[in-house]
């Protein structure tokens, strides 16, 4: 046997390192362009994050002291008739048994100073003095502090107030009003908390009703949208495509937009939110259900058919056990999403907690807003946990 000489291994040209290849450089240039444009078009300005802290600080601070518990508030409220026109004498208000007010003079001119004295108020408390015009508009003119005997004396300047069309007449009769407010008794749920809780319940049920309506329509529709059941003849295929197109179009419309449409249609309130969530969920659930029906294992169907079972029995014993648990899981998941959705649907008037959250923010009532934000957080987290737990149980 003759020894064969192996051919010398040919040197293989080392490939250029990846970062020198033309394709990579082209890709790099393209990405640079894309991100440069993106940075500009979205007006990214990281400096604002630090400059804006003072604006966001009150909100962040209040986020950690939500309006949850409060003591019962008591108010002492006394008024004294005044006039800014000597021709119209000051009103004589019926005297009460409680605190009283008196003034150095009760006939005053706008811009002049007058000393107000109060007696019989709660001792060592702070209060507020208001100037009230004829139509009942209060205007704060001073803060005061009562002494140990419950008395105070404060000098105020008579403000210019709106007197209305009858400027020469009765509008000259105005009032001074003193108010002392304090909290007493045990801590109890604040009014905000009660409102928020009521709205949280409304939110969860808004999501529940929306999801329920969606299930009722999505279950039958999902069979029409399942290819393995429908695409057996041209008519079925057409129905399948129409159903799937409906699902895809409806799914791509945000529930927030649907909610705007429904607030116009059925008016502001939770019903509009229910309809918006329902319509969007029909499409989402329908698609998920259809895909589940398409992915069932045909084996059990074959096996049950082979035992001589009727078509109804085949559906009951081979199809239903396969689709019911995932249907339940998807539905709970959708409800979970809908609870999250329904917290913002209120921003456009669709009911639920978002409605009052927006009000609190607009009125700069950050502590109340914080209560709503915490409530949303707790409910969404709880739903998340609950839905995960259920899904684990059934699937």
């Amino acid at each position, binding site marked *: 046997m003759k020894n064969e000489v192996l051919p010398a291994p040919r040197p293989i040209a080392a490939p250029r390192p990846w970062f020198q290849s033309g394709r990579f450089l082209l890709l790099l240039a393209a990405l640079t362009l894309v991100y440069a444009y993106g940075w500009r078009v979205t007006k990214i300005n990281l400096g604002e994050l630090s400059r804006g802290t003072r604006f966001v600080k009150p909100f962040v601070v209040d986020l950690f002291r939500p309006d949850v518990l409060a003591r019962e508030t008591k108010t002492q409220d006394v008024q004294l008739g005044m006039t800014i026109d000597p021709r119209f004498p000051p009103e004589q208000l019926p005297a009460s048994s409680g605190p009283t007010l008196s003034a150095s003079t009760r006939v005053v001119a706008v811009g002049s100073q007058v000393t107000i004295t109060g007696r019989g108020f709660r001792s060592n408390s702070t209060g507020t003095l208001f100037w009230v015009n004829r139509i009942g508009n209060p205007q704060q003119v001073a803060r005061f502090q009562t002494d140990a005997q419950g008395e105070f004396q404060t000098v105020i300047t008579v403000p210019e107030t709106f007197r209305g069309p009858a400027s020469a007449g009765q509008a000259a009769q105005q009032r001074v009003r003193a108010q002392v407010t304090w909290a007493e008794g045990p801590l109890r749920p604040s009014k905000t908390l009660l409102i928020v809780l009521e709205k949280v319940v409304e939110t969860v049920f808004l999501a529940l009703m929306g999801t329920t309506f969606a299930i009722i329509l999505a279950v039958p529709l999902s069979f029409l949208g399942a290819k393995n059941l429908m695409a057996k003849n041209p008519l079925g295929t057409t129905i399948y495509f129409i159903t799937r197109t409906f699902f895809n179009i409806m799914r791509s419309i945000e529930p927030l937009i649907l909610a705007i449409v429904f607030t116009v249609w059925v008016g502001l309130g939770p019903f509009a939110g229910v309809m918006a969530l329902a319509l969007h969920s029909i499409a989402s659930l329908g698609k998920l259900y259809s895909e589940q029906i398409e992915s069932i*294992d045909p*084996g*059990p169907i*074959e*096996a*049950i*058919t*082979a*035992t*001589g*079972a*009727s078509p*109804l*029995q085949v559906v*009951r*014993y*081979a199809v239903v*056990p*396969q689709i019911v*648990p995932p249907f339940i899981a998807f539905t709970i998941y959708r409800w979970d999403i809908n609870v999250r959705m329904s917290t913002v649907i209120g921003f456009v008037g669709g009911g639920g907690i978002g409605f009052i959250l927006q009000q609190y923010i607009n009125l700069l009532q950050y502590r109340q807003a914080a209560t709503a934000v915490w409530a949303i957080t707790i409910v969404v987290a709880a739903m998340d946990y609950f839905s995960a737990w259920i899904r684990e149980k059934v699937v």
Partner: protein
Amino acid sequence: MKGASLRIEHLVKVYPDGTRALNDISFDVTPGEFLVIIGLSGSGKSTLMRCINRLIEPTSGKIYIDDVDITSLSQKEMRELRRRIGMIFQQFNLVKRSSVLTNVLSGRLGYVPPSWALLNYFPKDQVAQGMANLARVGIPEKARTRADQLSGGQQQRVGIARALMQEPKMILADEPVASLDPATSHSVLKYIEELNKKDGITVLCSLHFLSLARRYGTRIVALKAGQVVFDGLPKDIDEQWFRNIYGEEAIEVEIA
């Protein structure tokens, strides 16, 4: 109980895509036989099995079970006939999320009114029969377990118990052990053999391993490209036949 007889005459199955899965198949099975069908994947074994209980409609040819031509039966008559033909599958085909007992009882569906299905109701005596069949395949303690919690061998035994619920005259076993390990394969095949020997049930069983076919079969039919290429006793399959059935390149693999 006496097994069913089977006679197949000129059976042809052409799928819509033009595949000729069965090409003029004819053979007889006498009551109480353990007929093993061998052949390469795609040789038509599964199609043949499914034509016998018309899960697949044959294109032409006749199939007689106990001298009744089943190819001319209506759907309703066919359902009544299927009640007496048990079927066992390679992938077990259990409803995975249902309990073992429900899977076993589903073998009885052909005998109970369809409306009972809504409540998943089975009479007491049938539940007792289901438990007895589970005991027979050695897993009575698994009755309340979900089917997918079981091992492969146990799942196949549930499949056997389900077929037993039908009080079958014939069992079609489509590669019953192809998904199982060698030891489990023997245990499953022994249960099927017991039904064949003790209860006299006619068994048609497709197998991959010739060693298993020789061990369990009373007769062997070999398919190749939709045609019967061998029909005879297990001992008659020699090296030459083996190459003929499985191709010239084939080497026989033994299974212990």
